[in-house]
């Protein structure tokens, strides 16, 4: 046991050594510079190259941005103003075009005296989303969430108040149908009734009922045709609708795809893979050229509605794939526990499976949404006046013929702000949910 030790050097520290500051310049500003920018020759070179790059970019862009005119009424006037102010060789930005066309870039041809309507509509939509997006909002705001889907379109398109009421009544009918049928024939028939009754109502009676009510009690606001929608309002309308509708549809598609029922699964897989396999632009072509062919003769519905349908379909397929990932990540035990407690399929999905699967899928869902919002610019290719489309028609104006960077820059900036804040929000959400249960 003993004698084998070279060191029986037992040692006990009698005095503890306190924290000491590090010896070299590894802290402080200089230390930071050394560690982060000039830690090696390669790094130093990279730093210098980066600095040069940033410098060159700023030198090229900054004077142009700053040497600008906000007041001119045409491109030539603007150029003159800039030459007058900053010298004959200078070129600068004509932000004046943004000032002059600001309201058009935002609202398109929406009648200017009722700009409050789209503003109120998007306010309502945000209000409706708030209780879903942020946990701190009181539960009562959920009423707004329920009302928003009817309120927002009505505010945007105007017309009789009875139409949204009639549409909303369809949901009441559906619920009633379920309550009447379900106890007697069971959940599945109940669900079918809940689906069928409102569809019949909407297709056959809702329009007439709304018309009739309008006769009796004319209540309404000035209707605005969707041809007048344009600018960011159009992007947001399409984006927001597609985003909100694609979530439930995507969930259904994802559930269908996970289903053990072969035919249901095949149909869902087919739809998802088809939609994901083709570019959005071809789907927009369908909306624009073919959707009217698919409808009974002489139905001619709004191009914006058609576009919204296709963009929603597109978003749904992508959301479905994201949610499928979330569903797959859920342990089997959760399903079994729900079964063992006697929850039926839909209740288990709603109470147990979806809340968890959605939580897992949030980053994916949000990036899908960002993608959808960005993709709304494609509608300019089929001639709708979203911001990109609008920039073309502004350029068609003799006064602003030849203006390029200011418009693209402005539009890009706006999109950047929207998309960037969405992605930051998703990070915030992820962080919050990660710590949520701990």
């Amino acid at each position, binding site marked *: 046991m003993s004698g084998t030790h070279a060191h029986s050097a037992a040692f006990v520290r009698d005095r503890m050594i306190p924290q000491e500051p590090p010896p070299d310049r590894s802290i402080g500003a200089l230390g930071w510079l050394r560690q982060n920018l000039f830690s090696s020759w390669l790094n130093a070179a990279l730093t210098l190259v980066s600095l040069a790059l940033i410098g060159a970019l700023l030198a090229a862009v900054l004077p142009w941005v700053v040497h600008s005119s906000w007041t001119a009424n045409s491109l030539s006037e603007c150029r003159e103003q800039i030459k007058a102010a900053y010298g004959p060789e200078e070129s600068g930005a004509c932000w004046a075009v943004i000032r002059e066309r600001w309201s058009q870039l935002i609202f398109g041809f929406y009648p200017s005296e009722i700009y409050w309507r789209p503003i109120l509509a998007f306010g309502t939509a945000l209000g409706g989303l708030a209780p879903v997006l942020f946990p701190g909002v009181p539960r009562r705001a959920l009423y707004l969430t329920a009302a928003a889907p009817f309120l927002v379109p009505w505010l945007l398109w105007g017309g009789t108040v009875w139409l949204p009421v009639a549409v909303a009544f369809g949901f009441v009918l559906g619920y009633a149908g379920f309550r009447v049928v379900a106890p007697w024939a*069971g959940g599945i028939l109940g669900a079918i009734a809940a689906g069928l009754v409102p569809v019949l109502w909407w297709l056959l009676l809702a329009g007439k009922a709304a018309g009739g009510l309008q006769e009796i009690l004319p209540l309404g606001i000035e209707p605005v045709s969707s041809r007048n929608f344009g600018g960011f309002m159009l992007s947001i309308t399409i984006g927001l609708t597609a985003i909100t509708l694609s979530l439930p549809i995507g969930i259904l598609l994802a559930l269908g795809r996970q289903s053990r029922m072969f035919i249901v699964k095949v149909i869902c897989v087919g739809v998802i893979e088809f939609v994901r396999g083709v570019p959005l632009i071809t789907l927009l072509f369908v909306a624009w050229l073919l959707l009217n062919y698919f409808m009974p003769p002489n139905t001619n519905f709004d191009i914006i509605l058609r576009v919204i349908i296709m963009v929603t379909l597109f978003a749904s397929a992508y959301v479905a794939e994201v949610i499928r990932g979330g569903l797959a990540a859920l*342990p089997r*035990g*959760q399903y*079994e*526990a729900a*079964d*063992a*407690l*006697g*929850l*039926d399929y839909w*209740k288990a999905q709603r*109470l*147990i499976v979806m*809340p*968890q699967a959605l*939580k897992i899928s949030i980053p994916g869902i949000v990036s899908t949404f960002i993608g959808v919002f960005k993709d709304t610019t494609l509608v300019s290719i089929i001639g709708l006046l979203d911001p990109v489309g609008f920039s073309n028609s502004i350029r068609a104006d003799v006064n602003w013929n030849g203006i390029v960077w200011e418009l693209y820059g402005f539009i890009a900036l706006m999109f950047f702000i929207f998309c960037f804040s969405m992605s930051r929000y998703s990070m915030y959400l992820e962080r919050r949910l990660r710590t*949520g*249960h*701990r």
Partner: protein
Amino acid sequence: MSDTAIDRSRLTVSDEVAIQILGMNKWYGAFHVLRDINLTINKGERIVVCGPSGSGKSTLIRCINRLEEHQSGKIVVDGIELTNDLKHIDQVRSEVGMVFQHFNLFPHLTILENCTLAPIWVRKVPKKEAVETAMYYLEKVKIPEQANKYPGQLSGGQQQRVAIARSLCMRPNIMLFDEPTSALDPEMIKEVLDTMIQLAEEGMTMICVTHEMGFARQVANRVIFMDQGQIVEQNEPEAFFNNPRSDRTRLFLSQILGH
């Protein structure tokens, strides 16, 4: 195992049949997992099922509340035969509570919500009443103070007790336990076993897959030994442990107790 003194005379068994399994067979694909199972369990019985891994213990109790489908034979629970009829399945499931090895609590709900979920949505109990019931059972498993935490914040033993409380909130007549303690650290096993003993004392019909032989001796009125999908031996605990009749049982017991 548990040090709690238990008065076995208080554990009564009634004559009414709770579960009856007749000539039941089950296959996974071509693999014959359960072979000709015959078993009658009376109200108030406390059955412990044991046997080597893969012998079909879990499958057996999962058949009882139809988490798995059997292919031939008959299972009657509380007078209701388990067929493909959804109504019957729902009825049976609300009579039978089940506790899983890995608890399977719902991590996105608080403990209280875990416990009130099924009563509210399946039994259609008013929320207030459901909360009262839940608190009653949470007290019973001695964690009422955790009611508003999330499962992730609890230790394994506490989680398993919540799982038991969650089942009890549906006021089942029969409880199934599938190795409820085998995912737990030694200190926590006792907490859970105590809770189960308490349940047994109150006359609950229980079927429990476990290798806690102390628990079996103390609580069970019958021990069933399974191997290769069959019931190989069943007997009262004393007789089972001290005097196993089959060779396989003896072999198995020697491994388990020597461990």
